[in-house]
């Protein structure tokens, strides 16, 4: 059996059948206003501890820094000048003319298909090229189709939910930390401190201390028919929650709209099922290359090569056995 999820989607593949459509986020960074309400709503709902030392981080308005055990939503702030804006516009345009999947007008057919024709020459008057721009983007666990953390977890603490999301059971997790190195996005981490507030009076220790921790796609809200805290809070609908195929379709439509307005810097992230993690449950519309936002351009699930590795290891072992056998055979002579 392959370790990689097939056409049926990750939940079905995990034995849940087809009762639930795969759920996910679409984060449209082109309408993010950087309010960080998602960060706060997430921490409030999940009672996650505060991070850091309460000093300015030195990264524009971002004082969170990165996703981690205590921070499951993180808003990045990127200040850019005109040159970089034009580069982003050009690189986005190239993505279209190269026929990159997931980008192009709705008429281009099914998800992942190549858009019709070369659009790079179409005359599209771009909006006023600003001298300067300030990008904001809310990052979150990708809930990968092929999740490295889940694959490597030796205790079974991490499971694939009926919603297609990847969830840690903190009462099962033994804190071994294997998953931390298996995440190609650097999302999952072990929690070393269970304190929510410097003023909180805690009668008992946080049982989550020392266990692996990350976004659950608000599993506890989903089972009650609620949407995750972050998307419910987002004032501009930059973060939307829903059925994964619908979100991917919305995302493609939005990119097409922005391209039609000349904003060729817009591109999608995570919608390609052929990428190194089989596509992600959380998809993003970005206005620059992924690295600019601190996202890996070509994420690879480390377990992707396991079958091949095992096969090669087997082959090598067989060779060794053969060589040894041969050497003994030879020695008999």
């Amino acid at each position, binding site marked *: 059996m392959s370790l990689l999820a097939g056409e049926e989607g990750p939940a079905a593949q995990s034995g849940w059948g087809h009762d639930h459509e795969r759920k996910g986020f679409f984060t449209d960074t082109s*309408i993010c*206003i950087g*309010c*960080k*309400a998602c960060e706060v709503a997430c921490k409030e709902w999940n009672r996650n501890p505060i991070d850091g030392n*309460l000093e*300015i981080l030195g990264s524009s308005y971002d004082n*969170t820094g990165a996703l981690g055990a205590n921070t499951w939503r993180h808003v990045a702030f990127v*200040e850019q000048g005109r040159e970089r804006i034009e580069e982003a516009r050009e690189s986005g345009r190239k993505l279209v003319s190269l026929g990159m999947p997931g980008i192009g007008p709705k008429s281009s057919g099914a998800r992942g298909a190549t858009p019709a024709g070369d659009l790079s020459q179409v005359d599209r008057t771009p909006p006023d090229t600003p001298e300067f721009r300030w990008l904001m983007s809310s990052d979150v666990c990708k809930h990968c189709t092929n999740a490295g953390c889940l694959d490597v977890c030796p205790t079974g603490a991490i499971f694939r939910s009926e919603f297609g999301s990847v969830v840690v059971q903190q009462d099962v997790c033994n804190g071994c930390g294997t998953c931390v190195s298996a995440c190609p996005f650097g999302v999952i981490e072990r929690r070393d401190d269970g304190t929510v507030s410097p*003023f909180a009076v805690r009668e008992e220790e946080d049982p989550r201390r020392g266990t692996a921790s990350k976004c659950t796609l608000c599993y506890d809200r989903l089972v009650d028919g609620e949407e995750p805290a972050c998307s419910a809070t987002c004032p501009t609908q930059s973060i939307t929650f829903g059925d994964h195929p619908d979100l991917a379709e919305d995302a493609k439509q939005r990119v097409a709209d922005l391209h039609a307005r000349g904003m060729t810097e817009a591109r999608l992230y995570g919608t390609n099922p052929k990428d190194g993690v089989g596509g992600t449950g959380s998809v993003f519309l970005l206005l620059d290359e992924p690295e600019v936002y601190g996202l890996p351009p070509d994420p690879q699930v480390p377990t992707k090569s396991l079958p091949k590795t095992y096969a090669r290891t087997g082959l090598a072992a067989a060779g060794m056995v053969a060589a040894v056998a041969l050497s003994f055979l030879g020695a008999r002579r």
Partner: protein
Amino acid sequence: MQDFANADLIVIEGSNMAEAHPVAFQWVIEARKRGARVIHVDPRFTRTSANADRHIPIRTGTDIVLLGGVIRHVLENELYFKEYVQAYTNASTLISEEYGDPEDLDGLFSGYDPETGTYDDSTWAYAGDPEQIARGLPERDETLQHPRTVFQILRRHYARYTPQMVQDTCGISPEDFEYLATSIAENSGRERTTMFAYALGWTQHQGGAQMIRTSGILQLLMGNVGRPGGGIMALRGHATIQGSTDIPTLYHILPGYLPMPKAGQDDFAEYTRGIGKKEQKGFWANADVYAINLLKAWWGEHASAENDWGFHNLPRLTGAHGTYQTLMRMLEGDVDGYFLFGQNPAVGSANGRMQRLGLSNLKWMVVRDFYMIESATFWKDGPEVESGELSPEQIGTEMFFLPAANHTEKAGSFTQTQRMVQWRDKAVEPPGDARSDLEFMYDLGRRVLAKLADSTDPRDRPLLDLTWDYPVDEHGDPDAEAVLAEINGRHIAGEKAGQPLASFGEMKDDGTTIGGCWIYSGVYADGVNRARKRTPGQEQDETAADWGWAWPANRRILYNRASADPEGRPWSERKKWVWWDEESGTWTGKDVPDFPATKRPDDPGDPSKGGAAALAGTDAFIMQADGRGWLFAPTGMVDGPMPTHYESPESNIRNPLYAQQSNPTRVTFRDEDNLSSPGAMGAGGEVYPYVFTTYRITEHHTAGGMSRFLPYLSELQPEMYCEVSPELAEEIGLEPYGWATIISARNAIEAKVLVTERMTPLRVGERTVHQIGLPFHWGRGSEAVVQGDGANDLIGMNLDANTQIQNSKNNSCTIIPGRRPRGAGRAELVEAYRRRAGLIPELHPQVDGADGAPGAGPVTEGTPHPMRGPEEASAVPTGEPSMKEMRNR
């Protein structure tokens, strides 16, 4: 707020909407998705600019020149909406021959008294027969050619506000000006509308009210008032600030914008005629009815026709009693006790040091808040304790801290910018001893009444006669809906006795109805709390009349008669809103029409009757005494009938337009702790060469009482910072994310440095102007999760004469690398700079920054005017100033 989505162009100026109003900003995003253009004019590139089509950096305080430039542009190029201007504004009205314009008087309007620093507005009056003017029928020239028409006066007044003047004053390039002016022109008219949004970036100037007036004039000229996607959105300072002016927490008005009576104003009939006369046009003609219903709501059976409805029970104003005047009295030892509800003046009010010194002069103080805010702890851990200036042993203020319930722990309403009242129910019981403000006030009143029960002192009658009888729940919390029902009003006699009023139209002047706030009448019609309506958007049309309730009469757009042409037809299919339906003989449309329902568009009006009957079918501005939108305001503003540009008192730029440097009516307080840089008017101005402006950020809430005490918000923006351009950082030697000390004529603070291209140095004439951004959320105290120096410590108490609001947006400073001195060294540093600037009171008597500015003396209101409109009363009443050393200069 959702009317933003109907706009074709949104100009956000004087507001950082995405950061300060992120939830409302969803409608701006929606408008953009529908193809609208968004322009952000602001000294800084903010999260709002990041989501706009263009950011235009401006030198703070020069908005009147920019918008005056656009006014000139649309007038000279005939781009204004002619039919609209002709029919619905006072463009054709002739102004008195005695009127003198600043263009002819070098920066002053006619009627200025240099002794008092105030205007007599009688020369700004409409021309014509006084009797006719009183009936809203002044002399007019419909050709707009007469030199004394408002239209021609406007043209002459703004003739020098050219693109070049804009560049030389605002630091805005001709290209950016052209972009703004053309965008506004192209997105106005029959088919399209432009909306303006402003906030404290306009109000917090000395002359801020006039900045708002400038956009009002422009919107009237472009025909963008009373129409979908038009108007001016006054984005409020925080939740239900609109509600707290409607039913005010202000000293100078009563519910429904009725003015507070002044000392000596003892005749009830004269008082109500001062608000609106029976013979004038429109709905202020019924001012007496509104006042009677309010007095009946408060004093019930004790208010009758015989005793003028208990009018004598109302306190009388003896002078300005704003927060800053009260503070000055504290410093003089004239205030014994002080209640603070949801306010943190030790951090949030101008001149923080004086605020804290004032509080330390009280005998007792009650703080009702969620946390031990700095105003509750300044006596033990404030900056003056750190510096050794004060010690807890010296401070006699007895402090009472009473925990308050928050908005989820009590029922009540929020009223937002578009006058929409939204109800919230109590979700959870408040924890511990926390109580709602309603319960606290009600209980306090009952205890005071119990103590006075046997009193025979006549001065206690107004209290003893109050209706003070709300039902309470099992926890003792009064029923907030009962208060809403009283505000709505009800019949107390006749067939309908006991029934709620359906609208203010049912209010009577004979004591058979009561109503606590006439504009809110209808919110509880039929006994239904309409503010609680929550029909989802998908289940109703775009007007969404079943979400909340907007005053008056659930009307979503005011003056919406103007959304139809003079004949009553929609200006265009695209901007259809309210129109005349000939078949039914009524006004109809997508909204509640803001006009007498059956008055035909061709109705000439009946001047002999007054009130609604006197309105002509085209008098769309039904609250104005002449039925027109006012391009020129003959009354209502204390500093001029039209906006004109003045520099801030601390500005280092000479006023490019007039010899008059600063607004001649501005209010300041003479005090050695409240000094100002002389700016361009004295050599010492160069000691404070940079401009600083204060603001909020999304992560925090005003003075921090609701954010710096919460770990999840504190970690998002943990430290006080300043924002500077790379050029200024280079000039001064500031390290990114290192420390800087900012010094003004009042104080010195320290902040972390954010060096960012979002700050742009502006070229203004021969000078490069550097602007420094300072969020004002931090303060010194040991209780909050995060603390830092407060930006308001740098700001002086210098007020706009119309509103008594301080100038927080445009002050001067210098900045040096490194942290500020500790202990007494801080004051020594400030003193050293003052010496260099010549700001030592005993050596330099003229220290408020305006040598040569005429006038110093008490503030009084202009004389009553025959055309006096229904607008709210001036913040500064007539009468002897109660404030020692208060100067209006």
